[in-house]
């Protein structure tokens, strides 16, 4: 994400903002839900405005409590036993837990809108 020079707190979240993020998050909201969520999200963001008073210039961000380094493992199968037959069984189990599967794949409705 590009650093932004303007770090002042934006204005109160609007109904349109909430409709926009709901669309981004793949959630369908009714009009009354939209009203309710707008007020509630505004309350939480307003509480977060207490951070405004802090001088945070020059403070480094913390994204994680641990100093993270890439963790590599040996390049051998570790999900399920290495034997082909058992591995296949694991795949079947995963697919069995999915809403729809076909020929070892997850099945979904058309992505581009045309008929299957």
């Amino acid at each position: 994400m590009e650093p932004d020079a303007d770090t002042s707190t934006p204005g109160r979240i609007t109904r349109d903002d909430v409709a926009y993020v709901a669309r981004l998050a793949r959630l369908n909201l009714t009009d009354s839900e939209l009203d309710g969520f707008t007020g509630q999200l505004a309350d939480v963001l307003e509480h977060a405005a207490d951070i405004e008073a802090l001088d945070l210039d020059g403070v480094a961000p913390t994204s994680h409590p641990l100093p993270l380094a890439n963790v590599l493992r040996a390049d051998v199968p570790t999900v399920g036993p290495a034997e082909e037959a058992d591995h296949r069984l694991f795949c079947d189990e995963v697919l069995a837990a999915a809403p729809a599967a076909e020929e070892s794949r997850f099945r979904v409705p058309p992505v581009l809108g045309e008929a299957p």
Partner: protein
Amino acid sequence: MSALSLAASVRSGERSARGIVEEHLAAIADGEGEIHAFNLVTTDAALERADRVDAVVAQGGDPGPLAGVPVALKDNMCTRGVPTTCGSLILDGWRPPYDATVVERLDAAGAVIIGKTNMDEFAMGSSTENSAFGPTLNPRDTTRVPGGSSGGSAAAVAAGFTPLSLGSDTGGSIRQPAALCGVVGVKPTYGAVSRYGLVAFASSLDQIGPFARNVADAALLLEAVAGHDPLDSTSIPVSAPDLLGVLDRGVEGLRVGIIEEISGSGPTGLEGFAPDVQSRLAEAAEALAAAGAVVEKASVPSTVFGLSAYYVIAPAEASSNLARFDGVRFGLRVDAENTVDMNAATRTAGFGDEVKRRIMLGTYALSAGYYDAYYGKSQKVRTLIVEDFARAYQSFDLLLSPTAPTTAFPIGEKVDDPMLMYLNDVCTIPSNLAGHPAMSVPFGVGDDGLPVGVQVLAPANGEPSMFRAAAVLEAAAGGSAGSRHDS
């Protein structure tokens, strides 16, 4: 009977694991209808498992330190072939194809998994009222909430359904329900217990930990599940700490600081702490001093901003983690003409209001134009909290605060006001942001007769001294307040 004595009696052949499991299943049959601690009681599997434990003993073997001891799992830990719902309709009926690492560790230790406990949906909540399967009630007073989000795990232990359970703690979800139900609850150091197979809420904050009716049992369970796991890349590369071995060492000479800002005692601190909770905290501090600790006031100023930072950071991580629930690979699908509409229809039907709220909050905080104002600033506040703790731990070995600002509140009281609900977590959130261990120990009761929890905080990997202080507090509470519910 404690988990320690139950395991000892099974290992010595004095009692059968089957007998112990049957006893607890009977307790569940008696009380579960009222409490609703479980989403699933795995009766048949538990009895079969108990028989296998007994067979090991019969052959002269040792099933392990948790031999025959029932353990309940919060329903966000994957159990192979056994429904794992996260308290959500979107995972209703889903059966994981693998076990979480904690499940394998419990198995290796001889434990018997007795069921999956109720929780706020995807661990988002402080009252267990956000479960898609109905609320859990507090066994101490069934008109009150048990706390949350691990309310089912706390209630199951408090009600005597199981001596031990596991919960997960992202902002207080083990410690706060432990306090409200009058049991011991521990959030270990970030990375001490593997998160492999724990359905993610906020990955940089989530940590699995134990519930028990006494400090020694909590130590027993934590020792069994902690330790490095190559399957979790954030697992710290150390073995499980020795806790049972140090429990009786006392606190002589330990320096303990009461965090002014989150105990209602500082001029610049947060408000809203009930006087009875403050009194119990003061008595707990006196008990530690009487046992030889040096107790003073401590200042960790930025803890007052923990709540604000948390309610940006946790939803931001959640909005990303919960993107995977799209109707393709797990659980629920609501069909539609095309995939995007199917994704939205599934998520709309499958998620409850609190989950939707946090996903939207996180999506907003991470979106272009708002990222720096919210997420960027919150991450910087997180740094301040880490630095303030580091400064405090130059003068103190341990810190102390209430676990929650009040005792258990009535069901329904805060469910319609998210911000009011979030305020429950002011004392517990800072430890998650810093990745530090903290635990709640029951210490007396409030004016309403309901349990009060005192929180002991320690620096990373400070569990041994944290447990020593907890053991001292437990002994003092048992001696003076008569409020120990050690059934």
